[in-house]
């Protein structure tokens, strides 16, 4: 009977200590996980921040250095050449030449 009570007490103490050990292990693991998560998050955030800041800096630099193109002063010659190009200079010349040939031929015919 005394042995029973003694054994019962021993087992109670063992269970209590086992629970305490499990609790301590859990608390320690949780704390370790928390610290590790916190540390890694800090690292990720930091790298993200640096990256974002760089991007922002680049955009800002691009905006600051942007300059509107000034309208170029166009000379009369430029306008002339521009118009010639737009109108297809070679065709124009050809047409012009053809006209001159026709005039020239007509002139011959008339003379002949």
């Amino acid at each position, binding site marked *: 009977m005394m042995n029973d009570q*003694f*054994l019962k007490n*021993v087992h109670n*103490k063992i269970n209590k200590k086992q629970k305490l050990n499990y609790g301590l292990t859990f608390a320690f693991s949780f704390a370790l996980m928390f610290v590790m998560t916190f540390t890694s998050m800090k690292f990720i955030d930091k790298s993200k921040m640096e990256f974002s800041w760089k991007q922002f800096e680049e955009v800002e630099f691009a905006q600051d250095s942007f300059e509107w193109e000034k309208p170029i002063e166009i000379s009369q010659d430029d306008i002339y050449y521009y118009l010639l190009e737009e109108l297809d200079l070679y065709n124009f010349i050809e047409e012009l030449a053809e006209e001159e040939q026709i005039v020239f031929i007509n002139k011959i015919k008339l003379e002949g």
Partner: protein
Amino acid sequence: MDDYTLIKRFLGGDKQAFDEIVIRHRDWVVGMAMGSLGDPQRAEDIAQNVFVKMYFKLHQFRFEAGLKTWIYRIAMNELNLYYRKEKMISWFREDEEEHLVPSYNPDDESDVKKYGTVVRNLVKKLPKIQRSITVLRIYQELPFKNIGEILGISENSAKVSFYKAKVNLKKWIKNK
């Protein structure tokens, strides 16, 4: 069934084997604690703690020494831990009892009891190794060879420490 077989059974997962070990060694562990503390309730508590520690450390048991020697070591550590706690508590206790040495008459049972209490309280004050040897020698009546094995010291060192413990105890009793 011998102790080693019971330990192997316990380590193999048989919890009943542990109970058998406890039942087998319970009486002398309680007796040892009782001898050095003089308080049956505390002695039972200390003995229970010894078996709880044994339960968690039995996987570390190397089958070189006997189980009894190993349990003695755990019990001595547990007693030393108790003494240390007592000492710490006594720092905060202002009204500490002064145990005066009664006039000793070996034929008077109450005198023997009182004297026993005084000696027990003085043993608490001995240095750790002297205290351990005194407990094992006086209350367990173990030979010095076994005491040396339990405490991991030589037989001669145990004898010398026991002599020093006796000198200290005599000196303290005289000064009271």
